[in-house]
């Protein structure tokens, strides 16, 4: 099964670079925790919870997003445009749908790995959050959505710079405004209507609901699934019909 082959490939990638991958996954979230959590928001209360309790699910969501997107988007972009090793996959009898799903699962596992590291650090910081199986399921789904976006971005990109631009214009703004560092309710109404449709807003919201011990929103869950399917289908169509991939 081609999905397993892709997962094997992602495992080899991880095995060779695990130290770098781990360090890269942790540095930004730790800085966010220190700057926003311990520095700026130590004495703040949001929706009746401490700012730290508000912040940590958001940071886990953005960490999962970044780790999944980079694990797939950056890696596939290099394989397609620089190493050209994607050519060998494309020429092989690998069903392209399975290839994309394999990338999504692999990227999602990388996202979960990074998110779990931050969760562990948060507990060391004494974070007052609850975690259950659905929490990890949301992390997995978040990773799937952004891995699919990574495949799509890597396939659409025409140069290495394009994928960096995609990160700058799509991923970076989402990191800061996607219901991560401050509540959507506090935003100006025009910005709020944009932010409310972003996938990260919904994954942050879901993780926060679970960590507060509240019921998870089915609507947010559904929106995440729709995003995942849309990104996957766009990537699949692009790979299939692109005459000069």
């Amino acid at each position, binding site marked *: 099964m*081609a999905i*397993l*082959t892709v997962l*094997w*490939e992602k495992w*080899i*990638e991880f095995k*060779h*670079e695990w130290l770098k991958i781990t360090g890269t996954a942790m540095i930004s979230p730790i800085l966010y925790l220190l700057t926003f959590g311990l520095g700026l928001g130590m004495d703040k209360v949001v929706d009746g919870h401490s700012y730290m309790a508000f912040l940590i699910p958001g940071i886990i969501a953005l960490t999962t997003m970044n780790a999944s997107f980079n694990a797939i988007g950056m890696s596939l972009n290099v*394989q397609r445009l620089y*190493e*050209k*090793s*994607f*050519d*060998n*996959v*494309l*020429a*092989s*009898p*690998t*069903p*392209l749908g399975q290839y994309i799903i394999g990338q999504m699962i692999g990227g999602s596992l990388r996202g979960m790995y990074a998110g779990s590291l931050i969760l562990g650090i948060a507990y060391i910081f004494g974070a007052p959050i609850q975690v259950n199986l659905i929490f990890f399921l949301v992390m997995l789904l978040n990773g799937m959505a952004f891995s699919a976006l990574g495949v799509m971005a890597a396939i659409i990109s025409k140069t290495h710079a394009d994928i960096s631009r995609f990160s700058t214009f799509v991923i970076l703004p989402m990191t800061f405004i996607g219901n991560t560092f401050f509540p959507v309710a506090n935003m100006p109404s025009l910005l709020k209507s944009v932010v409310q449709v972003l996938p990260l807003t919904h994954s942050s919201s879901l993780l926060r609901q679970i960590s507060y011990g509240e019921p998870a929103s089915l609507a947010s869950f559904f929106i995440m699934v729709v995003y995942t399917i849309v990104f996957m289908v766009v990537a699949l169509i692009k*790979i*299939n*019909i*692109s*005459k*000069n*991939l």
Partner: protein
Amino acid sequence: MLELIEIEKKFQEKKILENINFKVDKGEFFGLLGSNGAGKTTMIKLISTLLLPSHGKILLDRNEITRNNVEIKKRITTVTQEYTLRGDMSVDEIMEYQGRLYRIPREQRKRDSKDLLEFCGLMEHRKKRVRELSGGMKRKLMLCRALLPKPELVLLDEPTVGLDPFSRRQMWDLISGLNQQGMTFILTTHYMEEAQMLCKRIALIDEGRLLDIAPPLELINQLGNIAVEVVSPGGIQQEYFRNRELALAYAGSLNDPFTLRQTNLEDVFIKRLGRGID
């Protein structure tokens, strides 16, 4: 076995290939010759589905080769002109990855990888990452990778570039041996001796158009199998003759020094394609 029907390929509005039609028989060693930019690599990429044609079809045993035709793609492998290898993987992992992509059973892929790597002198380097290998080693690894699934059709796009003469001959032995066992090859190369030695038929391509398809000897005979090479103040010029007598008669009338020799494929290339090898 393989059939290209009315193939046309455009990049934006520029035609790279135009009305390409030819067939390659099972077990044939087929060459594609042309100067740089003639469209040879584009043709290889179209057959391997890395590119899709703007018009026309490519069939393997009457089945269209498409990106999703998994059963057909199982039967074809490619050695691309560029090093299409993961730099972070080791030699062993590259072979393992290929085995998995082509769904070769575990025991078979281990055994066949070992045999191929041993033949190509890569066994002692099997733990090295690709980025640590020399250019020649990468070339050999790409050939090993392409042969691992035991494909029916192998596309070779300048496979021996960067190899030393010994390694090149080793590669020729390997692929001509496999060809004798029935494996079909399509080769692009700028080494004319390679094409002349290996190919049963050769297609001459110029600016995206197919000029001729014939066995190497026939292409040479069409030109004249004896060449008179004249060294004059204006440079080196060649004239071609059907036989030695005609060549000698011409040479006798010359005032400049000359050499009499057998015509080769390089002469055909220069004469038919109107310029030297880039």
